[in-house]
């Protein structure tokens, strides 16, 4: 999906699209990868972190289906929701592209982006999601 004047990411600095990548950080001290990117390492407190783009694939670690729109949500229900573990060793809370219950633990997943909904100004907001 190519952003235009009518399309915007739901948040800046958390993911890139085209190609879709999550924007994380790697700590030079404890070597853990973190997501989203903060201005320090949430695992050891070091301020010496390097911005990295995370892998665009991982393994499914948890999943469910959201049936009722949570507060503030701009999209439609039902939608898939879960955790994907990336090769860097970081687990990411994420939308899942298919709200079905045929997932299995550890199955390969790939990153993409999707339109989530339209904000009050008529702008189409995009977010990241994982698909099988």
């Amino acid at each position, binding site marked *: 999906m190519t952003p235009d004047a009518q399309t915007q990411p739901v948040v800046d600095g958390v993911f890139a699209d085209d190609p879709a990548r999550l924007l994380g950080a790697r700590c030079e001290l404890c070597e853990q990868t973190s997501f989203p990117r903060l201005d320090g390492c949430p*695992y050891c407190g070091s301020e010496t972190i390097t911005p990295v783009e995370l892998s665009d694939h991982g393994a499914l670690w*948890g999943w469910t*289906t959201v049936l009722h729109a*949570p507060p503030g949500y701009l999209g439609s229900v039902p939608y898939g929701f879960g955790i994907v573990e990336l090769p860097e060793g970081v687990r990411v809370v994420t939308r899942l592209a298919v709200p079905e219950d045929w997932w299995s633990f550890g199955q390969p997943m790939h990153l993409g982006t999707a339109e989530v909904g339209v904000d009050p100004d008529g702008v189409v907001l995009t977010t990241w999601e994982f698909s099988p």
Partner: protein
Amino acid sequence: MSTTNRVPVDVIGIGLHPFGRFEDRTVTEMGVAAVRAALHDAGIDSSDRPGFQAAFCGTAYSGVAAGHKVLGALARTGMPIVDVEAGCASGGAALMLAASAIRAGQYDTVLVFGMEKMPRGIIRSSFFEPWREHAGLAATPAYFALRAQRLMRERGLTKEHLAQVVVKNRSHGVLNPDAMYQSETSVDAVLATRVVCEPLHLHMLCSPNEGAAAVVLRRGTGSSGAVRLEAAVLRSHLPGSVLGEATPLAGIDDSDITPPSTLAADAAYAEAGIGPEDVDVVECQDTDAARELLGWEELGLCVPGDQARILASGDANLGGARPINPSGGLLSKGEPLGASALGQVVELVRQLRSTAGARQVHGARVALAHTVGRGANASVTILTH
């Protein structure tokens, strides 16, 4: 029972405003009712004003000066009044601060109370950033569902086991006039309620609701005969813990990271000089049915993976070896956030005083209360008599 020469702290008064839905009552009125009852129970009357030297009020959503409004209505002000927020553990945090101040010799008598008037349905938590809400990542029950799914996968549990927790707690709630739900249920009936988020069905989740609870603590004497507060501990999550309690942050492998409930329990056991095997009765956080089963192992009440056997044995039921959530738990009472931890304490003091009526755990001498919530605060309280 303590291992050190600490200043003893007694629970000399308890009070409760029932948990439920009360359209025509303000949160202040519920707080007033609970505090009045606790003061009366403690023998503090209007000739003894204020009757305590500090007050701690646990609440998450009652707005500024919430505790002051309650004490202002009761004409018991002037002393320090501190409103405390620690999510589901708010009341536990207030209790910890009060007990510490008494042990420090700062005060003789301290009032602790908690109250909440939650909106209906899913809590719109101020925890999440707006973009997470927009994107659908602020789906609170989905986090509970993921935690439940993980526990089921790692401990060989099924939805039927989750339903059994609800059946157990609701069978206790029948005996509790202060509970919101006072009716029995069955595994089939629980599984027949609608799915909120796989694997959690509606009746496996507690309802956010309304209520208040209050406790009066006093520096103990050797022979007061009162219930004793042995430990009141609060801990937070360690860096890196993922889904410890619905954290929306990504995280790393947490298999070597001790959860906050265990940190709090270990510290409380050490402070009280006891181990989990000494505990006769437990109130533990059952935001959802799986959360209770996770709590059992985090608190050292069972070996990880032994939950199914214990459920089958009836050991955790009233009449069993060690009843868990004799009050009916949050699954029967509902969860008024700031009040829930102190509601547990009120229940356990009744159990230790042998005034719990039809739900009395006979011979209970050692009791443990546990809450854990947003921000991954966990509180563990140990009481003896």
